[in-house]
């Protein structure tokens, strides 16, 4: 007979427990039933803020498709358990469902604490925990201008970032005298404050809110105990969490004095048939407000149910976060509370870095650390701390900026196999190494196989280091060379060309390469030279570098003929121009088709016809569409406010401005833009490298999206921009892409591989973290100033036109090009038809 196991709460920990049990042999002994108060099954709260960057509820889901059905688990969605009858072992839900249980697991999580200030329940006073909360914030931000977060802890800072990204003037109001009082010390807190204020967020510390009431300029007014006031539309409470122990309390389970369901080392409550796990549980008088300890509790219960001995013995509360582009990390005993602890501090006012180490009295063990502004050492320090690895003789070397000839830090080799790499999924180095052994040679393969790095993501750099070191040991060379001719990455070459002002491939090969080059390095260098100096790509020294498409300024098709795509900026074209285009197509009997980028593609042009076709197009007022280049393709637009009933701004006008600005920009891969006139998004801007959407507050900029083979939803980069700022950001971002991306790397992959990802990119482009913005803008301005229509230049040059013949010594055409007719137009004949059908003579 199977027993019935009921799980109350399908949040992060409840779901981790179900998935763990479903994969354990104990599964066979239980019928599983779960109650989920929220309208959807478990989702990733840790990455909740990404909802604002365009992730949907489905993207955030933690439940694999068909999970409940596959494992025969009953889930009651949108229904909460109201009472537990321990005597009869029955739970009853709010909707009236009753279930008899043999074992019960409470995974009810916690709720945001809202201080009982008068007025706390006024309109637009919100919290930050569920997807519904985020939707409420979005709605409030639409009408409001100012937002204030109550609470300057971890979550408060994250909430403040969300408000700022929603375009609100943002304030943080903290009761304590410093930010993140729980995790970091005073000096670290002060540094963090300066950094956050530099990002335009106002920080109020030592402020006690005594009343929230009607505002004059905003919806609300916060009044502080010291008599000060703050007008704000949105008030977002993030003043800590409280365990949801109400139903446990009501059925007489033991709870802590300040809340929390008391559990022992097996996560059992005072009733041996009832477990509690996650944020609702109180272990050793502690509530754990992080997901990793909750997961550890879930694993303990799975093991206990399977009859294995397991115990939860506390958890590491170290954290590393990127808050508004500022790295913050806290490890172990950050406040040096251990008796005899010694402290090392490093502070660099100029670069705004603060680091602090707490070590044992004998200087052998690392007890804790605080890092603000620069946290790349987190992984190493955490490993010292968790694995009790003996510290080097001068522990301060670990936080002092090191000279390049010194090697500090703990190579992945120094870690024992038992060292935990991923704390969210409890994956140790041994497991990572076996997965690598079994053939996982990329980070993504490792993630899929071991789950390491798929939780909070904090361990990914360390995971990468282990991977690289293991691969190297197995004799794989981690080779990032562009090709056999250049022992450099594309980015290295870009810098060499820029710094040494190299103007030709021959010069670069001479100085930094070997051999004659190949079809990998030649176009790459051709593209770098073009984006750097923007010379005519068919000039003598560059000609041999270009792919055939660039050489003939057209796109080669399968039969060796070309297609021709004139630029139609923003997809706007007058009837006369359309007729002119039609006439050219008709005269040369070209196959015509509308492209996905809102222009017209003319197929079937033979190489010797290209100059004639282009002469007519240019005379009619067209210019090259650069469809052949790795360069800006199109700026797609919807019709926008000029015609559309819903339009908020002139999307066509902006699209034309942008297309004219960036046309001709050579880049590591093609670049596509789109502009939508309102959030209905008819131009599908969020699937483009650069997407712009008009809103009431200005333009919203989305970046690094992609359609095609590997679709990627673009990330929201900045909101409410005016046109000048928008263009400035795009200038910088594209220049940075051109400088740093690998060959044939679209912006989507570029960003995904970038250490620090979106936040880093924002820091570079918006906050000028690298101090590069001036250069990046100049680089773009040069390209814009030196734009030329490559077809116009080519038609004016007799020498160049000589190339546009099939034979150098004859005017004959290639007789292997054969067309047949289909749906009233030409297409290349297939092998069978070549034998039977008559050739259509082309003018």
């Amino acid at each position, binding site marked *: 007979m199977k027993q019935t196991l009921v799980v109350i709460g399908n949040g992060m920990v409840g779901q981790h427990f179900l998935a763990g049990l479903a994969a354990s042999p104990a599964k066979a002994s239980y019928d599983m039933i779960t109650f989920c108060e929220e309208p959807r099954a478990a989702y990733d709260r840790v990455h909740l803020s990404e909802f604002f960057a365009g992730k949907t509820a489905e993207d955030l889901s933690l439940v694999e498709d068909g999970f409940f059905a596959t494992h025969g688990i009953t889930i009651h969605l949108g229904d909460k358990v109201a009472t537990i009858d321990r005597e009869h072992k029955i739970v009853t839900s709010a909707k009236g469902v009753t279930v008899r249980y043999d074992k019960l697991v409470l995974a009810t999580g916690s709720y945001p604490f809202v201080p009982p200030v008068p007025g706390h329940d006024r309109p637009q006073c919100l919290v930050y925990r569920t997807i519904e909360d985020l939707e409420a914030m979005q709605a409030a931000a639409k009408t409001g201008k100012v937002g204030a977060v109550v609470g300057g802890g971890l979550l408060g800072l994250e909430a403040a970032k969300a408000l700022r990204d929603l375009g609100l003037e943002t304030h943080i109001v903290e009761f304590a005298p410093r930010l993140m009082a729980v995790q970091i010390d005073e000096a670290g807190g002060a540094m963090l404050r300066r950094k956050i204020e530099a990002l335009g967020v106002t920080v109020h510390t030592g402020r006690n809110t005594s009343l929230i009431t009607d505002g004059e300029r905003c919806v609300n007014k916060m009044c502080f105990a010291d008599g000060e006031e703050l007008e704000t539309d949105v008030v977002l409470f993030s003043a800590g969490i409280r365990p949801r122990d109400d139903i446990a309390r009501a059925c007489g389970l033991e709870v802590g004095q300040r809340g929390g369901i008391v559990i022992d080392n097996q996560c059992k409550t005072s009733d041996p048939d009832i477990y509690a796990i996650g944020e609702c549980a109180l272990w050793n008088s502690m509530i754990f407000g992080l997901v990793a300890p909750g997961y550890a509790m879930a694993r303990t219960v799975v093991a206990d149910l399977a009859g294995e001995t397991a115990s939860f013995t506390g958890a590491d509360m170290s954290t590393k976060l990127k808050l508004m582009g500022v790295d913050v990390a806290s490890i172990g005993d950050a406040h040096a509370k251990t008796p005899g602890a010694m402290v090392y501090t490093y502070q660099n006012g100029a670069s705004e870095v603060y680091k602090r180490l707490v070590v044992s009295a004998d200087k052998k063990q690392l007890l804790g650390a605080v890092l603000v502004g620069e946290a790349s050492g987190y992984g190493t320090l955490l490993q010292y701390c968790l694995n009790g690895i003996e510290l080097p003789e001068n522990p301060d070397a670990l936080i002092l900026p090191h000279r390049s000839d010194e090697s500090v830090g703990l190579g992945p080799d120094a870690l024992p196999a038992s060292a935990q790499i991923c704390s969210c999924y409890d994956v140790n180095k041994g497991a990572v190494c076996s997965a690598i052994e079994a053939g996982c040679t990329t980070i993504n393969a490792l993630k899929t196989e071991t789950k390491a790095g798929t939780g909070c993501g904090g361990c990914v750099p360390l995971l990468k280091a282990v991977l690289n070191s293991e691969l190297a040991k197995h004799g794989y060379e981690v080779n990032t060379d562009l090709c*056999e*001719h250049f022992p450099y990455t594309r980015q290295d070459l870009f810098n060499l060309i820029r710094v040494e002002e190299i103007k030709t491939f*021959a010069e670069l090969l001479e100085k930094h390469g070997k*051999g*004659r*080059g*190949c*079809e990998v*390095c*030649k*176009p790459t260098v051709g593209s770098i030279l073009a984006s750097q100096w923007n010379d005519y790509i068919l000039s*003598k020294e560059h*000609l*041999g*570098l*270009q*792919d*055939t*498409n660039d*050489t*003939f300024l057209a796109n*080669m098709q*399968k*039969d*060796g003929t070309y297609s021709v795509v004139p630029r139609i900026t923003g997809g706007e074209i007058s009837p006369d121009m359309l007729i002119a285009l039609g006439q050219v197509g008709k005269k040369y009997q070209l196959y015509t088709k509308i492209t996905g980028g809102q222009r017209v593609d003319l197929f079937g042009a033979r*190489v010797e016809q290209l100059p004639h076709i282009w002469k007519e197009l240019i005379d009619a007022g067209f210019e090259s569409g650069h469809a052949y280049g790795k360069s800006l393709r199109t700026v797609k637009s919807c019709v926008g406010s000029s015609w559309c009933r819903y339009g908020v701004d002139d999307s066509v006008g902006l699209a034309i401005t942008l297309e004219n600005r960036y046309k001709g920009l050579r880049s590591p891969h093609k670049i596509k833009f789109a502009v939508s006139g309102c959030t209905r998004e008819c131009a599908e801007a969020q699937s483009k490298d650069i997407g712009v959407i008009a809103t009431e507050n200005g333009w919203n900029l989305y970046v690094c999206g992609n359609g095609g083979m590997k679709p990627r939803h673009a990330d929201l980069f900045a909101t409410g921009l005016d046109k000048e700022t928008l263009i400035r950001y795009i200038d910088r971002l594209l220049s940075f892409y051109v400088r740093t991306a690998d060959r044939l790397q679209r912006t989507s992959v570029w960003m995904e591989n970038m250490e620090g990802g979106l936040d880093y990119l924002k820091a570079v482009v918006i906050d000028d973290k690298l101090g590069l913005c001036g250069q990046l803008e100049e680089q773009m301005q040069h390209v814009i100033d030196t734009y030329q229509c490559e077809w116009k230049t080519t038609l004016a040059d007799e020498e160049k036109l*000589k*190339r546009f013949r*099939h*034979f*150098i*010594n*004859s005017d*004959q055409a*290639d007789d*292997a090009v054969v067309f047949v007719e289909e749906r009233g137009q030409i297409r290349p004949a297939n*092998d069978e038809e070549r034998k039977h059908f008559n050739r259509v003579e082309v003018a």
Partner: protein
Amino acid sequence: MAWINVCGVDDLQADSGVCALVAGQQVALFYMPKDGAVFAVHNYDPCGKANVLSRGLIGDIAGQPVVASPLYKQHFNLETGVCLEDETVCIPVYPVRIDGGNVQINMGEAL
């Protein structure tokens, strides 16, 4: 077995290719002035099935001079005609020389 004058050296494109019609055959001619080298192979790409090789990029792979097909990027050794990706595929290669200002090919001796 005679050498045929095909075109002038000036008609070649440095570090790139052109196509010539020689005795009814399409011949791709590649010129690497730095090495003083000219290569002649048939213009037909047996993988992409089109007359396009003269429009491919040239260079070297592990020391062998090659052209990469502009269609699907297979490499052909310019001295032997052998396809680097599939050694069973081979394109015709012709003896070629520069005589004064002229480029000459010997069509009788396709290798």
